[in-house]
């Protein structure tokens, strides 16, 4: 059969997508898959038998804990992220813009020092519980985090921005007259939210749930730092690895990905049952106004309180960075403040090298992921072809696998020459890290972009074509501006995370491209908590600046899409 224009376009789109996915995702991952079927150099199912047999008790417990924690993390992040997004996008109040920028700050927190900041804040010896104890003269501290609650708290804190960002961009794409119609039919605020707004956010929520679920499944720092003894699959993988049992680590990784991918398929099915394209006649975008000032101010104060809580860890980090060595060891409260740590840091002439490296590599990766993400999600959402689910799975693999496993895969795939590395050995070169970041963050951008694309009415694109615009032009001038909020939020999240990326960086960095996170880790290893925190503060401020600039220059455009 002759290919019609549609099919030709689809094919044209799919070729680059497939090349990248096969070359940089599938090919490296195959090694892990094969490894899981190897035992003492022979092909066997022994590892899986072990997993479900002799080691079942620990492994299944870990698996169950992982799933349980991940589901709860999704729930908690959603509970924080959605209302915040709603408040900041639906109510206009003084400082809204400022607060809404702050709302994504948790992601800026460098993972390791971030978790430590949490412990300084909420741990048994933490600032908050002790401050409350001292303030109210309690005999005991009222609460403290640790164990599962700690993991969940940190997860919710660090992962709610996925919900926040996707919800925000999806909210802006909802035709307000839909909500108005529901109010008009007598629905109360909550039921409009439940029955109309929330379901219409589905694509965004599905995207965020997937991201959060998978990160939690693969999350390492939080369970490791906060509940060393608590068995989860990602730690199990790590321990198998440090114990030298690589085959078991691979097997566990495969199973972890399988669970994540099942979740993906489930969510796809869930989303596929309904239609979320805004297809009203004309543009009904009269933003409804708010009358109830009491409610408004309630929400605002809620928002402000939330902001304070969100920034507490950053504040702790700041405090830590200002406490000179020995100034806060056994004491409940820090004893002295100085700029000593910063002075020490800035004395090092190479201090800015890692910063520069991180920024350059993240920017490179983000440009790649921006372009690739848009094309891929467009193919996934707006084109129909056989094997869509498979493509979707491929896209999510870098996110479903623990970061260390991704790093290992890359080492195995690129420590020899291959066509995908243009015949060079990439391991040990500068380019391996930007590549790793690129691969790691493909899913993030693809998901957040897809979420917005799902809501876009097809006829807008058709109108452009009808006016004679070629596909590329249409794409550039019509599709991209409309989905910009989603792409942007995905890319910004990717950027922020790339700047702080640790688990794959630590495996792949070289002397020439040492990123910030490694530097912080090294300070920590030398027990220079203060300097590590100071470094963390530098990272936080840098990212904040980048975000600010990005919003200023790109966000303005995307606000207009309404």
């Amino acid at each position: 059969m002759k290919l019609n224009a549609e099919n030709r376009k689809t094919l044209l789109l799919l070729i680059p997508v497939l090349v990248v996915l096969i070359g940089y995702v599938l090919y490296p991952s195959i090694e892990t898959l094969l490894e899981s079927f190897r035992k003492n150099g022979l092909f066997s199912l022994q590892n899986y038998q072990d997993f479900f047999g002799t080691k079942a008790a620990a492994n299944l417990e870990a698996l169950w804990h992982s799933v349980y924690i991940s589901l709860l993390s999704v729930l908690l992040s959603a509970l924080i992220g959605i209302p915040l997004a709603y408040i900041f996008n639906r109510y206009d109040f003084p400082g809204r813009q400022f607060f809404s920028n702050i709302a994504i700050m948790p992601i800026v927190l460098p993972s390791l020092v971030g978790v430590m900041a949490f412990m300084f804040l909420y741990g048994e010896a933490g600032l908050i519980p002790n401050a409350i104890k001292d303030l109210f003269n309690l005999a005991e501290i009222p609460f403290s985090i640790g164990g599962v609650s700690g993991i969940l708290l940190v997860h919710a804190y660090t992962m709610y921005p996925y919900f926040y960002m996707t919800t925000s961009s999806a909210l802006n794409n909802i035709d307000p007259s839909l909500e108005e119609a529901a109010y008009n039919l007598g629905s109360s605020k909550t039921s409009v939210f439940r029955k109309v707004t929330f379901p219409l956010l589905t694509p965004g929520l599905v995207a965020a749930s997937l991201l959060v679920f998978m990160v939690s499944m693969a999350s390492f720092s939080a369970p490791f730092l906060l509940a060393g003894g608590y068995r989860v699959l990602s730690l199990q993988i790590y321990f198998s690895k440090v114990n030298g049992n690589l085959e078991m680590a691979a097997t566990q990784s495969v199973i972890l990905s399988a669970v994540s991918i099942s979740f993906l398929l489930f969510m796809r099915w869930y989303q596929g049952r309904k239609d979320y394209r805004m297809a009203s006649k004309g543009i009904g975008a009269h933003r409804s106004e708010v009358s109830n000032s009491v409610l408004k101010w309630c929400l605002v104060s809620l928002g402000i309180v939330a902001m304070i809580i969100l920034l507490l860890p950053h504040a702790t980090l700041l405090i830590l960075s200002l406490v000179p060595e020995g100034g806060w060891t056994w004491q409940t409260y820090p004893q002295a403040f100085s700029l000593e740590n910063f002075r020490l840091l800035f004395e090092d002439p190479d201090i800015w090298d890692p910063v520069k490296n991180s920024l350059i590599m993240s920017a490179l990766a983000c440009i790649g992921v921006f372009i690739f993400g848009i094309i891929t999600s467009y193919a996934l959402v707006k084109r129909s072809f056989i094997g869509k689910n498979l493509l979707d799975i491929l896209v999510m693999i870098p996110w479903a696998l623990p970061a260390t496993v991704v790093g290992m895969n890359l080492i195995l795939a690129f420590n020899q020459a291959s066509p995908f590395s243009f015949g060079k050995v990439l391991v040990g070169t500068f380019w391996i890290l930007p590549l790793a970041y690129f691969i790691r963050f493909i899913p993030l951008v693809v998901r957040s972009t897809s979420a917005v694309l799902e809501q876009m009415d097809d006829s807008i694109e058709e109108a452009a074509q009808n006016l004679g615009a070629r596909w590329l032009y249409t794409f550039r001038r019509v599709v991209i501006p409309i989905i910009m909020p989603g792409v942007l939020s995905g890319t910004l999240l990717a950027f922020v995370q790339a700047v702080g990326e640790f688990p794959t960086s630590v495996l792949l960095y070289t002397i020439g491209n040492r990123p910030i996170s490694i530097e912080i880790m090294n300070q920590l290893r030398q027990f220079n908590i203060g300097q590590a925190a100071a470094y963390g503060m530098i990272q936080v401020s840098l990212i904040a600046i980048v975000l600010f600039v990005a919003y200023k220059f790109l966000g303005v455009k995307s606000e207009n899409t309404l």
Partner: protein
Amino acid sequence: MAGGSSEETPEKASKDEGNAGSSEKLEDKVVVYSPHGSDILSDFEKQFEAEYDVDMQFLDMGSQEILDRVRSEKNNPQADVWWGAPQVNFDKAKEEGLLAKYKPSYADALPDMYHDEDWMWSGTSITPEVILYNTKEISPEEAPQDWDDLLDPKWKDEIIIRYPLASGTMRTIFSAMVYRTYQETESPEEGYEWLQKLDENTKEYAANPEIMYNQVAKGVGSLSVWNMPDTVMLAKEKGYPFDYVIPESGTPVLTEGIALVKDAPHPKAAKAFYEFVNTKEAAKLLAEKYYRIPTREDIEDLPGWITETDIKPMDIDWGLFQEKSQEWMEHWDTKIKNTEKDKSQQ
């Protein structure tokens, strides 16, 4: 501390020790993988570069990471020298054929227990394991004096343990506890029981050393087991309220070493560096400034905390120890570690 190193520069290293000799032309660069931290490393970078016309570059990372990395770079080695890791890591690397043989000029000054029999690595410093306690909470008299004292029910919920699976130090201590009885009984059961009891007294497994220090310092718990140099360093340099007890019955002593990477791109410069970091002056500097106990026996005027302490090393067959340790730790992880307790920490 990064700045103030110049005044303590040791006298020029005596040339006769360097059999890599300056007569031969060295490569212009040497790459060192080391967990010693940038303070030590940049200090040594300056000194080494002052002495030789070689650009020293270092990657500062954990010893386990170094092993992983050297392994992953096997086809395309990037590093020349691996400076600093417990001997078990070196043994593993040796087993996998990642190291090159080198017998340094100071070989005679090293006791046999501090170098590999095939000279695949040699020791630079030793780290005895100790019981660490918080001086604000416990007086020196009260403090447990031996390993078995830790099992006393009065320490219930007072012990913070760095999560052992990922920590060389902790693996060594735990395995040593099993090994003590295994030596005689050929069975780990008694050791397991010991660990079981320790687990009962343990309040928390901390994921990394910093957290452990913090929890002990702030009095969340008051006891831990750790290594001596770190403990001293924390107490003297960082102002932590820590002190230590060397267990009476003997303690495992880890050897930290240095090794050359096989097929290293700059083998000559690597050898020069190998020699350079274990000169007498360097060893003394490390001891005084960075709290490392030297392996060389020919160093004089060591600080008091080294000379005054009487370390009784435990007698360990490291080969067997290494072989069994994996199994024991796995047993601990799956059968002994009380995850219920962990979870219940609200």
